[in-house]
């Protein structure tokens, strides 16, 4: 089922939580709302769920407006950040909750609950209560509770923020597999960029109630469209630049781009992976400089150069030390022009 949010605005008193937000999520897509806390991503999710009403704008499910359908009638379920499991019910009763609300015959409820618990590898925990489970298990109960209702759209509000890093990585992969298997539309809210890059088909980067960029993880990472996106995701070298004829004049030297921007003054973004160390002067976009810092990070060396404080990543077997004189090449395909 496709999901569309069209021109959604929402104010809390003087605070503009959302300003004219448009998103479109295709059927079977895992769409992530990514941004720092207070950017409005959770508010948007709650509006989609029907737990909050937008001041302006409409939510469409499969092209039908649902703004006036209350949350308990929308074919949408939510996995809450705190999981919101009912503490006085067993895990099986928790999972059965939505089905019983819909007055589905008890034999069918049992079957679906069993299947749901099995899918989440929780079969042996059905008779226990939520407070007898670990955080990761509780999160899976919450997932099962939402999924047995077979929602057309599943909303996940920071479902992994309360879990430790290792477990989180594991669950991210499981989440991705699960979503591919059941082919439903998922909308995920997170402030964790690694999570967003790992699991998403598409990411919307939000800031101060606005969507700044929507794209695949690769597009977002490789082609950020503004300074905020570049800095929010991963590490970025941002170099002030000015267009002079066919070349870009920058603080680190003249650069050649495959395609020139249409502005005069702006900046170039390049990821550390886009800068390569060279023995000799490269054919274009070369910079000769000294190494000011080197950190060994296990899988790579984190090198900082004197010129423009450029950060470079290179393989850990490179013998580089502070003070070494080096040539680097800023790969022209890795350079992104931004203007904001």
């Amino acid at each position, binding site marked *: 089922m496709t999901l569309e949010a069209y021109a959604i605005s929402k104010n809390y008193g003087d605070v503009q939580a959302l300003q004219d937000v448009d998103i479109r999520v295709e059927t079977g897509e895992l769409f992530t709302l990514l941004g720092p806390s207070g950017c409005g991503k959770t508010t948007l999710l709650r509006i989609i*769920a*029907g*737990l909050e009403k937008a001041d302006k704008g409409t939510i469409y499910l499969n092209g039908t407006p649902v703004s006036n359908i*209350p*949350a*308990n*009638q929308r074919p*949408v*379920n*939510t996995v*809450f950040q*705190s999981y*919101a*499991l*009912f*503490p*006085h019910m067993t895990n099986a009763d928790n999972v059965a*909750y*939505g089905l019983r*609300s*819909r007055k589905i015959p008890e034999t069918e409820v049992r079957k679906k609950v069993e299947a749901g618990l099995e899918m989440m590898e929780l079969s042996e925990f059905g008779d226990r209560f939520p407070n007898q489970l670990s955080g990761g298990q509780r999160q899976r109960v919450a997932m099962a*509770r*939402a999924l047995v*209702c077979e929602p057309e759209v599943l909303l996940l509000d920071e479902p992994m923020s309360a879990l430790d890093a290792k477990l989180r990585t594991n669950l991210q992969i499981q989440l991705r597999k699960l979503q591919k298997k059941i082919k439903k539309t998922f909308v995920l809210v997170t402030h964790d960029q690694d999570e967003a890059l790992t699991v998403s088909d598409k990411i919307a980067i939000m800031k101060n109630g606005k969507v700044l960029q929507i794209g695949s993880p690769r597009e977002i990472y490789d082609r950020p469209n503004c300074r905020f996106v570049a800095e929010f995701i991963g590490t970025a070298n941002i170099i002030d630049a000015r267009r002079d004829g066919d070349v870009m004049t920058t603080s680190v030297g003249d650069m050649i781009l495959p395609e020139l921007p249409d502005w005069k003054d702006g900046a170039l973004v390049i990821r550390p992976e886009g800068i390569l160390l060279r023995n000799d002067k490269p054919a274009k976009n070369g910079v000769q400089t000294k190494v000011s810092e080197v950190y060994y990070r296990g899988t790579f060396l984190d090198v900082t150069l004197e010129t423009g404080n450029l950060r470079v990543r290179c393989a850990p077997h490179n013998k580089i030390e502070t003070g070494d004189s080096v040539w680097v090449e800023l790969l022209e395909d890795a350079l992104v022009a931004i203007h904001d």
Partner: protein
Amino acid sequence: MLLTIPALALIAVSFATRGSYGEIQWIFTWENYERLMGYGLFGWSPDYLWILLRSLVVAAVTTTACIALAFPLAFFIARQPKKKRYLWLILVIIPFWTNLVIRTYAWQLVLSPDLPIAQFAARLNIIPQGSPLYPSSFAVYMGMISAFLPFVVLPLYSSVEKLDWTLVEAAYDLYSSKKRIFLQAILPQTLPGLSVGAILTFVPAMGMFLVPDLLGGAKYMLVGNLIQQQFGKSRDWPFGAAVSLALMALTLIGLFVFRRKGEDMEVV
């Protein structure tokens, strides 16, 4: 010690005999309990049993009515902005600053024939023109409910204030009807405050004698009045002790039933 000695003494006294001048004579007898069960000098009559039953009903109705009123009130207060909340809580508490006797007399005044409530009732032909609304069971319930409402509102409010609203949202998100949201997401969370409030109301309501005395008139006798009479005017301590113990037993039974009901509700 301080609690058990008087209780044990009460048990002992309840099996003693009243002397002709109201003193306690230590002659063991079942007579007090027989009398309570209705076996008197002139054969069997259910007067005392009626009093016990009426007390039970009055206490149960008062508790139920207080809960029914306290729920919306507690939610109303909890939904106010912080500053206003305290104002409302103070308004709930202020009546406590006045003695119950005075508050009960105030009800007599409120229900007196010159004031709108009685006049309105008279216009509806419920009572004759120019007469007060008391003594009546209506007046007793008004007095009882107003006396005990804060005891339910305050503990209930403390539960409502701590309510985890995401559970309510989760229930709503999972296709719950309003009734199911209340029973499954709100009630279990407020049950601790609710049971404290119910006990704080039910137990003293069982033994209440002041309100029925002033607002119920002579015909509206409850166990509390009976006990007070036996220890006071009648000077029949042994019988009074027997009635007191019967009241205690009834209260315990009432609480037990209430607890069972509470547990049942959690399973709904």
